[in-house]
């Protein structure tokens, strides 16, 4: 198919000898139209390029400021990555990211323990068991849940989850601090359930009907079809949704700030306060540190680590999902 402006120009050329008047009438218009088309295409392309510029901006900002941080703090990269001490206010200050990495990992792990099984089971229910009409009610409700901002979940941790934990553990003689990792795990886990269930459900519903019917034809029960046919067939898609959910938990900020507190430490006790990478960034920016100091610049180094981790998880998830699509779609 030739482009419209080309064909207009061609027809004008053909008409030239016979109808000079018509040519005059149209050529100005078609030239203007061609210019207009090109201008529109360029503007649209520029808007698409804005998204690429955003990524470049993030990478540039984070890496430039991180280099500045290493120059300012005189900390080596190895010290930053391997030191277990994070004392930005001490003299001399130490910046070890390990306590933050531990906090982030612990919260991501704990919330996954809640969200992944529940999300997967509810995805199986929605795609295999639910009657059509019930599904029509449940899916929008889950979407609604996904639309609630994280600050609300953080407040829920303070208002409900921590008091409940206190009521459970304090009679047993275990002290529960106001900010603790367990309540953060619970609210973040609840937060990412809709993500797991809706992404996994999309994948499971896309498993070809023929596979199910073949299994039913061989006398399999619904349970067997769900767990031995549909789930293995959609496994890579389910894994992709898991990875995405973990990445969301790693990047979660406000719920963790309000629930887990700001105490950088490495501990296995879930009832202790922890600090994650995102919380540290909020702590530095809300504090008194002025621009250019090592403490202020450290937020960029932590931000870069956070960005690299989540980007890595997202890319892995994308690759896994692409493999699933290759097999079935």
């Amino acid at each position, binding site marked *: *198919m030739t*482009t*419209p*402006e080309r064909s207009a120009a061609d027809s004008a050329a053909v008409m030239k000898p016979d109808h000079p008047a018509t040519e005059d009438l149209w050529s100005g218009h078609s030239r203007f*139209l061609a210019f*207009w*088309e090109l201008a*529109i*295409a360029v503007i*649209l392309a520029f*808007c*698409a390029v*804005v*998204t690429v510029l*955003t*990524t470049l*901006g*993030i990478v540039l*900002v984070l890496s430039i*400021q991180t280099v500045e941080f290493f120059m300012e703090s005189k900390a080596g990269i190895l010290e930053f990555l391997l030191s277990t001490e994070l004392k930005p206010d001490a003299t001399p200050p130490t910046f070890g990211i390990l306590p933050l990495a531990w906090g982030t990992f612990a919260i991501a792990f704990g919330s996954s323990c809640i969200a992944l*099984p529940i999300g997967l089971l*509810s995805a199986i*229910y929605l795609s295999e*068991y639910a009657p059509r009409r019930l599904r029509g009610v*449940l899916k*929008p*409700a*889950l979407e*609604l849940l996904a*639309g*609630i*901002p*994280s*600050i*609300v979940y*953080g*407040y*829920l941790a303070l*208002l*409900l989850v921590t008091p409940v934990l206190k009521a459970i553990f304090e009679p047993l003689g275990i002290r529960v601090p106001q900010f603790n990792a367990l309540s953060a795990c619970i609210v973040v886990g609840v937060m990412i359930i*809709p993500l797991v*269930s809706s992404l996994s459900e999309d994948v499971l519903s896309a498993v070809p009907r023929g596979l199910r019917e073949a299994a039913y034809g061989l006398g399999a*029960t619904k*349970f067997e079809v*769900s*767990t031995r046919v549909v789930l293995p067939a959609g496994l890579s898609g389910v894994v992709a949704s898991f990875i995405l959910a973990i*990445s969301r938990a790693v*990047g*979660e*900020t*406000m719920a963790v700030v309000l629930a887990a507190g700001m105490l950088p430490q490495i501990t296995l006790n879930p009832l202790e306060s922890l600090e994650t990478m*995102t919380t540290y*960034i*909020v702590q530095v920016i*809300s504090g008194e540190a002025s621009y250019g100091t090592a403490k202020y610049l450290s937020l*960029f180094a932590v931000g870069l680590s*956070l*960005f690299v981790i*989540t980007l890595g998880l997202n890319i892995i998830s*994308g690759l896994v999902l692409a493999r699933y699509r290759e097999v079935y779609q």
Partner: protein
Amino acid sequence: MSETAAPRFRPHRMIRSLLGPIFGAACFLATLTGLIVLVVLLGSILYAALKGKPDNPWYAIVANLRELWGLLRTVALNRQSSDPATAGYRVGIVGSLWLLGLVALLAIPVGVAAGVYLEEYAPPGRLRRIIQTNIANLAGVPSIVYGILGLALFVRAFGVKALALGPCLLAGALTLGLLILPIIVITTQEALRTVPGSLRQAALALGATRWQMVSGHVLPAALPGIMTGTILGLSRAIGETAPLLMVGAAGAIRKLPKGPLERYTALPVEIYNYAKEPDRMFQTITAGGIVILLILLLSMNAAAIMIRNRFQRYQ
């Protein structure tokens, strides 16, 4: 033969017939957790909002609604304060509405244009694939990283004083705009994909140029889908707190912003500040703010779902 086989399979068959319903029930319960959480969340926040008011039993719905209405009116009219009796969200609500307008103005045109370019213009090839992968990855970047970007790029402009916006509404709106750009692009693309190819071919066959075809026929047909995605994106932007903390939406502001270059605060940021207060008296204020935020967000979401259900033309 069958007499010997039947007993051999009986225990196995019993397990099979039991396991199925048990598993189904477990799956159903797992699905219900979502709903239960929603109910518990709304219930406990409403309870916290009504605590400290004249004691009505929970079933006195009319009296409780009147109490709630009174509380919401007070916190919506009062400004930021360290005294729970006069604390409220007026400046934050105005700031959030400013942000909503500015973000819509900045992000919708760019996002829709990018979506149109990728679906209708871009030749399939490496460039398109790169942009597409890039958008998918941007959608997964944590919001606080956008906050860092906004801080360095818009608020400080790498220390170039002439370009730095400072902690003003425009800087916040630009940051949130970049944050929801991937959402708008992706939903625009999805909406454009549902428009049948015959519509495009008909327009081109009548001699329309590409832009005439897109602006006159394809975009109007995809409009409901685009609007749904856009509203969902905007509601995400309104609920975000972390990036606004980064770009300087401080809590302690009592002056209403009058233009995009003034200092501001936003509703979720004020909620965060009240939530941090150790004084129990602030619980009612915080819960009241959350009720206002949720009413705003849920009505936006409901509008989006209604538009989607009403105009499902080509699906």
